[in-house]
């Protein structure tokens, strides 16, 4: 919305007495009960529409008026989006699945341990109770856990709009700082995580000054080992660039290498050096650029070592 913000009295609402401290700009609020209705409202709103799920990223942005959408579509009453399903081929996480729901699910901990490990590091308990996985992915904060996990696990983003559904590989979804590939009127309805192949180990590590704070640096690693050789390697650095930052050079270097105890030490040191060369973090009040770069290498080694230990020694 543009122009001066009308007060409650100007709109004929009797709230001026109790609306002195109001923070978000006015919006029209809809809480549809079906996805079809939600998509219709979002489609009509176009660029002026925003989806409200857990609200742990959107509400601060509304309170600060970083965003002032004309239409807010609250999807919390759409039961069909509250779907968390672990199948033989993969895990499906609907748009209303909260971080805490993942942590309470034994199938997730067993089949997708890196996802569970990363989720324990998402903010704080009260935020994990409300915030959604799809919301974190859509928001794409560069220091968030879920975008990097989704990219590392080669997941899929399922998008819906009035024109229908489409699927995007995770890497195509993230298009830069706090940006994604959604068109106006579209929303993320589901994420899919393939089941990791046999012989896979994965780990997510991050470093923050205080538990649950935005990570200064982090890393997600996934290794698949067959007959002592690294069949595939994925390494993503968190908190450095515009979003999930895959270090392709290190992945290629690790692929087909023998990763025994001695070899892995050398290989991971080499990978860390590649990470340090590849990232280009900015200075800020929390850490200098050179410290962040160094930390990215340390996180990469920690993630790779833990991932390797979890491959089951094949």
């Amino acid at each position: 919305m543009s122009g001066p913000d009308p007060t409650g009295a100007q709109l004929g609402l009797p709230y001026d007495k109790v609306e002195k401290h109001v923070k978000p700009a006015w919006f029209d609020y809809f809480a549809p009960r079906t996805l079809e209705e939600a998509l219709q409202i979002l489609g009509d709103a176009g660029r002026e529409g925003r989806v409200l799920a857990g609200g742990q990223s959107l509400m601060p942005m509304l309170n600060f008026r970083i965003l002032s959408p004309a239409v807010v579509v609250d999807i919390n009453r759409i039961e069909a989006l509250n779907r968390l399903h672990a199948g033989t081929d993969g895990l499906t996480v609907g748009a209303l699945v909260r971080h805490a729901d993942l942590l309470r699910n034994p199938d997730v901990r067993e089949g997708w341990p890196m996802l569970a490990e990363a989720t324990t590091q998402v903010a704080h308990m009260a935020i994990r109770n409300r915030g959604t996985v799809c919301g974190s992915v859509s928001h794409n904060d560069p220091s968030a856990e879920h975008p990097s996990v989704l990219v590392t696990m080669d997941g899929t983003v399922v998008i819906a709009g009035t024109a229908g559904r489409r699927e995007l590989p995770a890497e195509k979804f993230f298009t830069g700082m706090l940006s994604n590939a959604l068109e106006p009127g579209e929303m993320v309805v589901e994420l899919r995580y393939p089941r990791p192949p046999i012989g896979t180990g994965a780990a997510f590590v991050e470093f923050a000054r205080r538990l649950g704070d935005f990570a200064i640096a982090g890393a997600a690693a996934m290794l698949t080992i067959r007959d002592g050789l690294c069949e595939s390697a994925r390494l993503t650095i968190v908190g450095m660039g515009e979003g999930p930052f895959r270090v392709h050079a290190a992945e290629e270097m690790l692929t087909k290498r023998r990763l025994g105890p001695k070899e892995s030490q050398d290989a991971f040191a080499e990978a860390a050096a590649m990470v340090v060369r590849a990232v280009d973090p900015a200075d800020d009040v929390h850490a200098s650029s050179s410290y962040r770069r160094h930390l990215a290498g340390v996180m990469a080694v920690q993630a790779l070592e833990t991932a390797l230990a979890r491959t089951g020694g094949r």
Partner: protein
Amino acid sequence: MAREQRIQLIVNGRAYDKTVPVRLSLADFLRDHLHLTGTHLGCEHGVCGACTISMNGRSARSCLTLAVQADGADIITIEGLRAEDGTRHPMQQIFLENFALQCGYCTPGFLITAIELLRDNPNPTELEVREAISGNLCRCSGYQAIVDAILTAARKELA
């Protein structure tokens, strides 16, 4: 238009039926409309944890929840912790005994968080307590007394 909406909800066991502006936060609703001013507001963007309430049995930031989203919800605030006769909740009593508060501004959020922690994990380690309260900022107690209080509460409940 969709700028105000009727909500029906339970707060501390009492049913309310109100019409509210859609942009009103649950925190402001509790404080300004229901006059339950025990829910404190520090940062109003989800960082400090002072406004933490229990919504349908789970802790939530009331500054990051719209009042309209609480339609149909069952909310517990700090005012709902003590018994009908005014007796303190055991966690309140233990906070008092352990000097786990000074100015008290953050305390409502800490109590809601601590009670949820012990419900989900009756025997937490010190690290688990510190992780659980990491989303609540206290600027005067220095946390140690709060951690002690929660661990004491866990031991008492197990005993």
